[in-house]
């Protein structure tokens, strides 16, 4: 029997160097203590509400609903949070926890830069040192976010190893944590990595589905028929799904980045093209070759450009409780443009993957059915890259 700690079915676990074992054990103990501590939760709630701007709105997308001619569409507006994405929910929780543990330094990986910006923000607020690892490739794709992190006082270290994207940033952050543990907390940005991270990050992001549930019951008097979210590691998706997992009539749909298509090598759709494996501290599904070498994945979205998926998603997939669908670059870009023009909301290119799938399924649904799409972040950071995708060179 393998380690039962932090398992989701067969997935999860703690596949990390011995050097880090006491660090994750210490983190688990601290989290178990503080998660039920009323003072800690009061402090966190105040930060989430007064600083980050929660609860985020559940907005009825009237024009999109009319235009698509099917299900009633609601947008969970995580893009309206301080720093522009759902990432701040998790970061405020982890930073506060790290502070209580006596840590003075936060390190983080980032893909699109949203998690890095959120971590740099929390570090500034809580007087902590901050170092962010970001793939060299992504520092170019997301130059604005690099500047934001530096402005907030963080050091940004471009990672040149491997594919110089998110997975390499995670590897480098893990290496850094191995070399400096005593004063440093690794503020992991998604529901991945070794236990207890997938659980901690999920719990801090579960506020999304808790709010959706309350808000939709107030507005519609019933639960939605489907909840859609984009999935890279899967933190906004698990946050959006969590409080609906027991509500079997609510379809949970994770939208993966198919890049140029799941039949090409330029894809990051893990469930569609990956197989079970062990990497970055966890057992889950990974894009890999026949010898277990991790595949160099691709997506237009730096935030979804990751060859794995969080272990709880892997389990929700195994059990059939959630569905995972691939969405291509082109479909995501069209959705990015569509939501901007139709509702006046520019979504992050990551979130646009969920919008794109909603555009496919909404027309076939009944007008009394309800879809909730989590708009996990705002798209300002993506404008230059999308313009380039459309053949237009703009200067930020």
């Amino acid at each position: 029997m393998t380690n039962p700690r932090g398992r989701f079915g067969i997935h999860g676990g703690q596949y990390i160097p011995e050097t880090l074992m006491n660090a994750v054990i210490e983190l688990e103990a601290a989290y178990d203590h503080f998660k039920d501590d009323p003072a800690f939760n009061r402090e966190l709630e105040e930060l989430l509400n007064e600083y980050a701007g929660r609860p985020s709105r559940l907005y009825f997308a009237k024009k999109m609903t009319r235009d698509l001619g099917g299900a009633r569409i609601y947008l969970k507006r995580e893009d309206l949070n301080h720093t522009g994405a759902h990432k701040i929910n998790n970061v405020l929780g982890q930073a506060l926890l790290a502070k209580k543990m006596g840590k003075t330094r936060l390190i983080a990986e980032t893909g699109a830069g949203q998690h890095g910006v959120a971590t740099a923000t929390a570090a500034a607020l809580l007087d902590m040192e901050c170092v962010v690892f970001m793939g060299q490739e992504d520092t170019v794709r997301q130059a604005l976010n690099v500047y934001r992190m530096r402005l907030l006082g963080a050091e940004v270290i471009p990672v040149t190893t491997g594919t110089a994207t998110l997975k390499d940033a995670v590897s480098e952050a893990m290496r850094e944590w191995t070399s400096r543990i005593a004063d440093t907390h690794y503020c992991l940005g998604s529901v991945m990595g070794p236990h207890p991270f997938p659980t901690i990050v999920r719990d801090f992001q579960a506020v999304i589905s808790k709010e959706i549930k309350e808000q939709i019951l107030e507005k519609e008097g019933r639960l939605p028929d489907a909840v859609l979210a984009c999935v890279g590691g899967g933190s906004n998706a698990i946050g959006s799904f969590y409080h609906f997992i027991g509500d079997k009539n609510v379809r949970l749909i994770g939208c993966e980045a198919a890049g140029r298509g799941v039949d090409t090598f330029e894809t990051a759709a893990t469930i569609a093209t990956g197989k079970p494996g062990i990497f970055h501290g966890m057992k889950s599904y990974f894009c890999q070759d026949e010898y277990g070498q991790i595949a160099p994945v691709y997506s237009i979205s730096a935030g979804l450009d990751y060859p794995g998926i969080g272990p709880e998603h892997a389990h929700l997939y195994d059990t059939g409780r959630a569905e995972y669908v691939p969405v291509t670059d082109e479909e995501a870009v069209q959705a990015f443009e569509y939501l901007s023009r139709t509702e006046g909301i520019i979504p992050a290119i990551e979130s646009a993957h969920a919008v794109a799938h909603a555009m496919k399924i909404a027309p076939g649904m009944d007008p009394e059915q309800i879809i909730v799409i989590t708009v996990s972040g705002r798209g300002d950071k993506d404008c230059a890259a999308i313009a380039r995708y459309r053949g237009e060179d703009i200067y930020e």
Partner: protein
Amino acid sequence: MSKIREAFDHGKAFIAFITCGDPDPETTAAAVRSAVRCGADLIELGIPFSDPTAEGPVIQAASLRALQGGITTDKVFDLVRDLRRDVTVPMVFMTYANVIFSYGAERFLAACEETGIDGLILPDLPYEEKEEFLPFCRAHGVDLISLIAPTSENRIAMIAKEAEGFVYVVSSLGVTGMRSEIRTDLASIVEVIRQNTSVPCVIGFGISTPAQAAEMAAVSDGAIVGSAIVKILEKYGKEAPEHIGEYVRSMKDAMR
């Protein structure tokens, strides 16, 4: 009693790490034979992994060179088969969990037994997860080697009690790679290990000079050297085996 014990029959053991297929399997084979001829007591063969999170830049680069050169797990087993025609010292693999998991643990360990691999070192398989592969290791007579780190503290006894082959003591925080000095209090870690097991105890991570090897051998049963050897391969490529031999001899001499 595992074959690994033989590595410790002639005093302090020198363990040489070499990445398979860097830059090609022929060079690896020549490097192994040269190291053995010059006194290496045990060979640690690295099966390259695309994303080696416990490695520093030197072994990361070697893994990349080897993968780009077309090495695969099957070709590594072919290499071991070739080496076992004349190499009799114990040999172990160093790789990452996914390499074994994706190959199939039973199939991988059966191939280890068939080709003559005596142990496995998996930096991303801590004590808590060892059941993932241990039953397959047992079934095929392969030792699953335990690592103990400077941060292990209260975990040392628990890990040492179940150790097989040898205990790999990680000298320093961080990843593999040469270090100018090693400041961990290794003697007290080794003392706790020895209170809990009779298997030999060797130190690795950061060792490159004969003086360091002597220092490590003084407090343990031997030293593991990786990055310094890989660096020679990086510098000399196909011409490296001869230089590796000289280097191994200098290290081995210092440990006597």
